């Protein structure tokens, strides 16, 4: 595999991160506070969860990841540590796939 796509990904990904801080740096100091920019995280995380649990390529699918997400939701509700949530989700998906 040639290095050029790897380098392009590296430059692009870092550039997009730096761009955010550069743009943010030009904003009025309390704009972020007044506009509650922290809320941006919320729909993006929700979208990532949905896409990574219920889609495969461009298809919507229901597979072992859905029950794994339910198990994760229960453990999050019980305030289990992150690593417990993650391992329980993996174990659920792995177990169901083993049975299938």
């Amino acid at each position, binding site marked *: 595999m040639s290095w050029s796509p790897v380098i392009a*990904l590296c430059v692009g990904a870092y550039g997009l991160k730096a761009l955010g801080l550069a743009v943010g740096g030009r904003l009025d100091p309390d704009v972020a506070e007044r506009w509650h920019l922290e809320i941006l995280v919320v729909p993006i995380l929700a979208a990532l*969860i949905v896409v990574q649990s219920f889609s495969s390529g461009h298809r919507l699918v229901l597979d072992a990841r859905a029950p794994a997400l339910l198990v994760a939701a229960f453990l999050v509700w019980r305030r289990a540590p992150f690593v417990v949530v993650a391992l329980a989700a993996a174990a659920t998906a792995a177990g169901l796939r083993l049975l299938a």
Partner: protein
Amino acid sequence: MRGACSIISQVVTTDSTVGADAQQTAPDQVLRDALSIALATGLYAVSFGVLSVAAGFSVAQTCVMSVVTFTGASQFTFVSVIGAGGSPAAALAPALLLAARNTLYGISLKSVLTGSVARRALLAQGVIDETSAMAHAQPAPAAKRRAFDLTAVLLFVGWNLGTVAGALAGQGLGNPQDLGLDAMFPAVFLALLAPQLRNADSRRAALAGGLVALALVSFVPAGVPIIAAGVVAVPFLVTAHRRGRREADA
């Protein structure tokens, strides 16, 4: 359970007087959460290493990607498109679209990530989902910054150690899906999202973002549903802004 009780009692006893400021998570809890995220992330970084080498990248290329790119969803997308026979251009487009959410995070973290240009250039590398969510779960700027720093450093270590392990072990570990590693990613994100859903604006924004992504995923290029979900946040930002102003005027 004890954690849940103490959070509830904090909210109950302080909500009416000082509101969000008092809900600050104890510092050692932040450290524990950051360690926990780093451990979980390190495990699914193993699956990135395996998939990347299987897609035809060398161990060195795989490791450089994790150190320099350091944004999981983009890396997974990139190697999976190439692994499926896609061209580099076809792999770069969705990977960079996904990475564009870090730009939005960077804007939202502006008041948290302060310092000299060189320092901010270094901090920029840490602007990802987990660090942004951990920072924004804290109410005060100093606590936000501490949560960001701890999560960024620990996660960077975990992500890269996991990548090296996966790249070296390669297919010897078996198919990452058989181990359920693909189910870890959404589970961690759910744990990160939950503390952010404290008010009605956030809950509506989460619901809207999830529905938009679900509606779009079949029809648009990979990465677009995620950015569209970020755009969906704008009306909620406006609502939160107006409500803040009304409360200030009152």
